[in-house]
């Protein structure tokens, strides 16, 4: 169906007072000013009000004429529960719905959310009640009573909220202190763990050095075994542990000399020697009837061992004793002057 000419009413034919009336009842006006204007006309002009009522009732029928759909049962339950909560603003309800239900509360309820507001409202209440007595207005009195009841309830709620807040703050402070303490313990444990790791790394490093030294010593020992068994050497003299002769060091150093059966080549091996001081090296001395004779100068491995080959100046039986001292690196001196670390009588 389309509009017939009879149905077309041009805008010019409409009384301006009625122009926006249909849009008003249909909720289709664009601006608040238009709505105010229509409401003003409804209030002022009976004919406008009459048409407003007619159109409104028609719009009611539009609402009644929608396809029937039943709401779920819980909807009524929810509404009644909300109404119950708003009837009796218990502490529990207000605490539980403080956030969500704010928008559902009336303006004067919302205005009582702070202690200051409560105090201000109490002051206002006293003033207004004093003035209201003169009016003897029952409705006003009821409102005041309701306001007073709500004010008391709100005051209780505010007091409880303050108490809750105070308790919560104390709990929070306790928790913060406890967390700080735990963090201190964790820091200590972390520090200890770090120290352990550093120590273990040092141990590993030392073990690696010792391992290398042992490998070197093993190679020396293998070489010594080789030369003594295959090249005609034999151990001519064991140097005993000389702890008792050593006074300047706690090292219990010891060593041996292997001398070739035919010829004058010899091998000296020592163990348990400390690293010599900077600029110093160990010197092997042979001592007969005359003054000590230096035969070799040597350093030591990381584990304090050394193996050196040297030429015997004379057969070993010409020497009554052997000693090792620390001497400056600058060549072999004529007399021992440094600390003696090994001394032994030859057999």
């Amino acid at each position: 169906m389309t509009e017939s000419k009879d149905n077309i009413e041009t805008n010019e034919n409409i009384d301006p007072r009625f122009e926006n009336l249909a849009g008003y009842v249909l909720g289709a006006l664009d601006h608040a000013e238009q709505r105010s204007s229509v409401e003003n006309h409804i209030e002022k002009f009976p004919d406008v009000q009459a048409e407003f009522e007619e159109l409104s009732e028609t719009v009611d029928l539009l609402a009644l004429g929608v396809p029937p759909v039943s709401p779920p049962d819980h909807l009524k339950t929810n509404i009644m529960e909300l109404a119950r909560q708003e009837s009796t603003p218990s502490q529990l309800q207000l605490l539980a719905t403080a956030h969500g239900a704010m928008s559902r509360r009336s303006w004067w309820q919302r205005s009582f959310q702070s202690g200051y507001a409560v105090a201000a409202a109490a002051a206002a209440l006293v003033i207004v009640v004093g003035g209201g007595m003169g009016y003897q207005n029952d409705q006003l009195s009821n409102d005041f009573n309701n306001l007073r009841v709500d004010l008391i309830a709100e005051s209780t709620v505010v007091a409880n909220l303050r108490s809750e807040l105070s308790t919560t703050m104390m709990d929070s402070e306790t928790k913060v202190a406890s967390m700080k303490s735990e963090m201190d313990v964790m820091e200590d444990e972390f520090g200890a763990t770090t120290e352990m790791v550093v120590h273990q790394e040092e141990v590993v490093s030392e073990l690696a050095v010792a391992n290398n030294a042992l490998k070197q010593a093993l190679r020396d020992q293998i070489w010594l075994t080789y030369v003594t068994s295959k090249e005609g050497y034999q151990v001519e003299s064991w140097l005993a542990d000389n702890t008792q002769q050593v006074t300047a060091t706690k090292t219990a150093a010891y060593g041996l000399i292997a001398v070739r059966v035919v010829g004058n080549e010899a091998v000296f091996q020592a163990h348990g020697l400390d690293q010599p001081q900077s600029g110093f090296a160990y010197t092997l001395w042979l001592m007969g009837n005359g003054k000590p004779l230096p035969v070799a100068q040597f350093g030591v491995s990381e584990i304090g061992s050394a193996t050196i080959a040297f030429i015997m100046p004379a057969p070993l039986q010409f020497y009554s004793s052997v000693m090792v001292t620390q001497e400056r690196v600058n060549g072999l001196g004529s007399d021992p002057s440094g600390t003696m670390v090994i001394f032994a009588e030859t057999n």
Partner: protein
Amino acid sequence: MNRLNYQGLEDLELLAKIGDRDREALAALYDRYGRRVFALAVRILSDPVGSEEVTQDVFMSVWRRGATYTLNKGKFTTWLFSIAHNRTIDELRKRRRDRSRENTDIDDHLNIESTDVSPADAVVAQSEYDKVRSAMEHLPVEQKNVIELSYFRGLTQTEIATKTGQPLGTVKTRMRLALKKLRMALSAETGAQA
């Protein structure tokens, strides 16, 4: 003690009791109009969950503002459905701003299935629905569209003019004519309906 029959009270009597914070009066009013408010919201929003929220807000408004209602505001049903319609349209416009319903076809709103209605209610509701539907069908298409676009789609007069390409004055005129024709058609069918 005789228990008060709330179902037998008039709307205004129930409102007076609501003013006294009588929740049973609210329950009675909900029983009387809750289904219709919910159905209106569903018709406009096509969203049962959103319609529940709207219906809840409407009846909580009645609970809070019922004591302030006066006959100066028109019939109670006019006042109630005005609250319901405004609240639903607000929700619809909010959603439209979110562009969640941009492409919904107008006719989608007209084909909502009836669900979960008691047989007695269904008869009454179907009867009302059929009458309004029939009256709407007898309107010229252009007039029917302005009702649909304004009341059920929440468009303003200017928005309808833009959407239909018609002058604003024509839109206003069609709105007024459509409502007057509907009134005549429905009055003829229902007599003293409403």
